[in-house]
């Protein structure tokens, strides 16, 4: 049974992360990886074309060459290796997993705050600090989404958890208390 992309990506990113960490090149590496990810995201078919057999090997080589030329050192080796092992379609996921590891190391959390009205910068800062204290993170990258249907309050959604302080949810709970 072939492994799924996430499993593969976790293994590659772990090895890459440990290697770059020992070379003290984490920040530099992440920047380069993000650029590679942009290339793959801009050309959604690139990953599959480089993995499956729809192109002749020589033409595939031509496609991957610019990527190899543009990189150097460990990242160059990574691209070469992922290409050799036919895992180019997992490239985006490898970078994602790498970034997840990087974020864990630097205690960075990404979160989305949903509010009924747009938040001002100072309010966002206060929310950011409060959330950082609650989850024990150094940096919180917070984006703001406006959804009038929650009526009021804030819903902070981060990977795997939802902190729900919206009026809508409170009303629903109140209803359950009264009816249940």
């Amino acid at each position, binding site marked *: 049974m072939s492994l799924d992309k996430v499993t593969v990506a*976790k293994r590659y990113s772990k090895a890459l992360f440990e290697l770059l960490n020992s070379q003290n090149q984490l920040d530099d590496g992440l920047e380069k990886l993000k650029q590679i990810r942009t290339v793959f995201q801009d050309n959604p078919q690139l990953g599959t074309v480089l993995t499956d057999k729809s192109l002749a090997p020589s033409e595939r080589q031509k496609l991957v060459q610019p990527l190899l030329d543009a990189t150097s050192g460990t990242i160059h080796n990574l691209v070469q290796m992922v290409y050799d092992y036919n895992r180019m379609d997992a490239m985006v996921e490898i970078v994602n997993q790498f970034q997840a590891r990087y974020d864990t190391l630097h205690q960075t959390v990404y979160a989305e705050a949903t509010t009924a009205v747009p938040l001002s910068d100072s309010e966002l800062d206060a929310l950011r600090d409060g959330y950082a204290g609650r989850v024990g993170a150094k940096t919180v990258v917070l984006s703001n989404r406006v959804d009038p249907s929650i009526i009021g309050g804030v819903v902070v959604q981060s990977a*795997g*958890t*939802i*902190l*729900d302080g919206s009026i809508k*949810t409170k009303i629903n*709970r109140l209803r359950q*208390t*009264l009816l249940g």
Partner: protein
Amino acid sequence: MSIKAEEISALIKQQLANYQDEISVEETGTVTYVGDGIARAHGLENALSGELLEFDTGVYGMVQNLESNDVGIVVLGDFTKITEGDTVKRTGRIMEVPVGDELIGRVVNPLGQAVDGLGTINTGHTRPIERKAPGVMERQSVFEPLQTGMKAIDALVPIGRGQRELIIGDRKTGKTTVAIDTIINQKDQNMICIYVAIGQKESTVRGSVETLRKYGAMDYTIVVTAGPSEPAPLLYIAPYAGAAMGEEFMFNGKHVLIVYDDLSKQADAYRELSLILRRPPGREAYPGDIFYTHSRLLERAAKLNDELGGGSMTALPIIETKAGDVSAYIPTNVISITDGQIFLDSDSFYSGIRPAIDAGTSVSRVGGDAQVKAMKKVAGTLRLDLASYHELESFAQFGSDLDAATQAKLNRGARTVEVLKQPLHAPLSVANQVLILYALTRGFLDKVELDDIAKFESGLFDFFNGSHKDLLDTITSTGQLPDDAALKSAVQEYADTFQPSKVSQDQAAATN
């Protein structure tokens, strides 16, 4: 009636006082696959095996597989409204069903919700559907009898309270009937019955419920049903839900009889969801833990010790075989788990021997200790008699000249088979069973024509009810056989007055 605004507002205030304004914290995951009653979700990193999850649509799911990147979930309800990308929340609870007296007389689905249209059931408390079975020290040996009301079972394969007795046979051999008749016979026996219908046609379940209601058995019965149109996970959890309902009574010192009709369908449902969850298939494509699925369920049947109230739960699992093949995977598994089996034979069924119990292959490993003493005395040699009769019967077909002893044996055998026949939904009391078997083993039936046995039997019961009720009462109250001379003379008295429906040539010749 006037609406009392003050009372109502006081009630609402009281409820509101309990309301706490807090931010809800929920762990979530994202659905990545949905289909055939199964969902997979990324995230949910702290989810526990067996935990209940809630989907956006309000449908609940149960965690089955914990894998490195995702979680396999069985959906307990309508999965068609769940889409890829939906969020799924942890609830922190494990799967539970409502339990309690309020369920008695109701028909519910495996989640404990009423499906009989008689309104919602508010029991107030719940039990987890999966529970570790009582251990060694919490049990005691089976010693009280469970009367099925069927002569063939109570005489040959007696069942004790707390036993697990398998009912096995091909389709259309009367497996469900044996179970239903047993439930009907539990009237006034201080028993609570639970009938778990797994994958049975809705019309069949309706018929069974109507039968139970007609004989007044719904007053002490709970019916749990998961029809064939329900998704496989509901069929899979149905017996566990039924067992949880039964345990509530058992731990309160009551006696429970639970029928799982049938476990082959539950195994099929579990195979289905296991294959979709991508668990490796084993023999007959069943997953590796199919044995554990059944063993942990049946192990929950128990006779508790006196410190725990001495309650019991007797399980009658049903297994359907294909063309009499008991060596298939599921039948062998369940045979080895249970304390004996009642084997129903389709050939006997069609030749008119109903209940079609095969005395040779049916056994009860612990029920003998629980059998009423009087019954033990009259039924002691029955099994051997039947075995030798069947052996002789096949030989006798070839030869015409038989010696008197063989002739007598064949004669007695044919009458034994006839006596063990019983009509539908007509369970007999122990006293009556002992009486007719006494008449059989003491030779009172040897001169009665085969066609007259049923008539003799019903007449005998009427005669004893009218003239010798004390003898029947002795059996019922003490469990011992009454004074042999008295019983013998009473039966003789009836046999002498018995009028055969027609005088046959043999008898006419014999009297000359």
